């Protein structure tokens, strides 16, 4: 295989596999910036994948599937928000419970949908003009679905909101020092709820991408641990949407490249690679106190009660 086609396939696979990771990571960044760790990504993602598939299958409209998946993901995240923000439950345990619930529910409800062919998946688009550029054109601007580019578009928007608008300052203040934010008249509860819901909606859409575009079908456990990789990528991204983009595509490219080793390494060990990568990435970005300086919200995982320190 020539190096051109090698590049093209790596680029296009990185975009395809990186998109759901990026969607999930963008959402988790917002939730964590407001001080709420949501380990339920995997559960919300799989509920999104399931509901998107069922909607697209029955209505024939994949975009309606994307919308429904977002709504389902958002609705699911409210459970976590209620438990952790209103009831002040432990965020780690609540997130795990959400994942268990989502995987279980999608498995139970999705049983009769397994293996059905989806004729109404998202269309692949070719961007006129740009796709004619040699190598980069077919690598980046051909054979992807519109959701891939919409996700990319979301990155600068979410970055701008988080770092250059009043809303963003409010979100970060709530995640850093909720007591001070509260005393300045910010409704901490509302900000946290909204950020968790944003995370849920995006995780749901990420699931929709999986069942409508990445592999148009419904299979049980089709998220296969992606939700956990999202949690790792959020840390790798230093809670910044721009680095989130970098991390997601880089991770996806590495994942794709590892399959090139198939001649030398057994398929089972190759499947373990992405998880090993995730740990290695965390090791690389961890430099003790660097984390604090690079954006880890100070009040992450801490519930807020007015009047208590």
């Amino acid at each position, binding site marked *: 295989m020539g190096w051109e086609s090698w590049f093209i396939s790596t680029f296009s696979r990185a975009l395809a596999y990186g998109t759901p990771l990026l969607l999930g990571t963008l959402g988790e960044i917002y939730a964590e910036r407001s001080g709420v760790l949501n380990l339920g990504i995997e559960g919300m993602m799989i509920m999104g994948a399931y509901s998107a598939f069922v909607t697209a299958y029955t209505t024939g409209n994949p975009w309606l599937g994307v919308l429904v998946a977002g709504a389902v993901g958002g609705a699911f995240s409210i459970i976590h928000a209620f438990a952790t923000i209103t*009831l002040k439950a432990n965020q780690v*345990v609540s997130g795990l419970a959400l994942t268990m*619930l989502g995987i*279980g529910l999608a*498995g*139970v409800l999705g049983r009769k949908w397994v293996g059905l062919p989806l004729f109404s998946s998202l269309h692949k688009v070719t961007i006129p003009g740009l796709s004619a550029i040699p190598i980069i054109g077919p690598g980046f601007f051909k054979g992807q679905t519109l959701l891939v580019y919409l996700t990319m578009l979301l990155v600068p928007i979410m970055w701008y909101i988080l770092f250059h608008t009043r809303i963003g300052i409010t979100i970060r203040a709530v995640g850093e020092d909720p007591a001070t934010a509260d005393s300045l008249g910010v409704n901490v509860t509302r900000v946290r709820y909204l950020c968790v819901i944003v995370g849920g909606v995006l995780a749901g859409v990420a699931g929709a991408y999986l069942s409508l575009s990445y592999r148009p079908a419904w299979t049980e456990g089709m998220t296969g641990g992606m939700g956990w990789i999202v949690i790792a990528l959020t840390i790798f991204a230093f809670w910044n949407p721009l680095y989130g983009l970098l991390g997601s595509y880089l991770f996806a490219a590495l994942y794709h490249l590892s399959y090139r080793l198939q001649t030398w390494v057994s398929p089972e060990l190759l499947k373990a690679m992405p*998880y*090993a990568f995730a740990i290695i990435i*965390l090791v690389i970005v961890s430099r*003790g106190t660097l984390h604090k300086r690079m954006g880890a919200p100070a009040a992450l995982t801490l519930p807020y009660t007015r009047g208590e320190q």
Partner: protein
Amino acid sequence: MHAPSWLCIERRPLPSGRTILTVSVIAIVAAFVVAGIFFALFGVPPIEAYGTILRGALGSWHGFAETLRRAIPLLLIGVGLTVAFRALFWNIGADGQLLLGTAAATWVALFSGLHGPIVIPAMFVAGFIAGALWGLIPAVLKAKLGINDVITTLMMNYIAMYLIMWLIHGPWKGPTMRGFAYTDKFPPAAQIPTIAGTHVHWPTLVLGLVLAVAAYVLVNRTKMGFEIRVVGENPHAARFAGISQLKTTLVVMLISGGLAGLAGVGEVAGVHMRLLDPNQISMGYGYTAIIVAWLARKNPLAVIITALFFGILMAGGDVIKVSLQLPFQLIDVFNGLIMFFLIGSELLMHYKISLRRR
């Protein structure tokens, strides 16, 4: 929190044992009520479903034996998790540590060349070490580099799973097992004795009970246990008191990983008698044990009861799968719901909620 004006939420001092018990029971009942809706959606009256679960898990000797068999790994892992959770180490990776235990036991049984009565003790030792080492990796990463324990322990579950798959498809694939991805059957010397006609490998059960007591003593009666609790409850004070976070983290993960490894030994050498597909060995024991430990309020002795409770649910889940044709994932839904109601109810335990007189 912005509570409505007619609600009054006050912080309670430490909840009493009775409050904890009452609140836990209410939480479980609430989870059962919500899960009942799912049974109804599948056309099974909830009362009938719960009746079937109870009869299946406790109504016969065979059913009770199945309950016990499920409770054994939950007990071992759950006890270990209470210790880890005490030090606020989120070990979500017990499934992976269990799998490493199965691999070590398999190596001892099939490839070590050991014979006779030494084999079973050697398997337990090897399983403990393998599980502990697997658990120590995330412990070191957290204590030395500050890397999030939830993620690393989880990632290592997947790595362990594929490692076992590789072993059974590749180097350890049994020559006598044509076409199947199993290892060969363990020789009799490497099979843990069971109560006749059941899968209850009683030596592992006894080991679990002894270790529950040992863990209780460790946590409540020793200096090490005191340090573990301080690190978990007030890391700030721990640093001031000169308690080494590195040491406590390593110790709790040595115990937690090791106990999960022991559970793995029990599963391969007491139930399956061979190494096989990870999904057939573990079925999420490591995740369920998190709820087991949480429901026990991180008390190793209480794990004996909560492990039995989830043993009933798991054994009952098998029965409703077969006799009522319900999907087995209902048990995941169940577990998720119980966990939510449990943590949600903690507010009730720590805060007194009352109606405010207008």
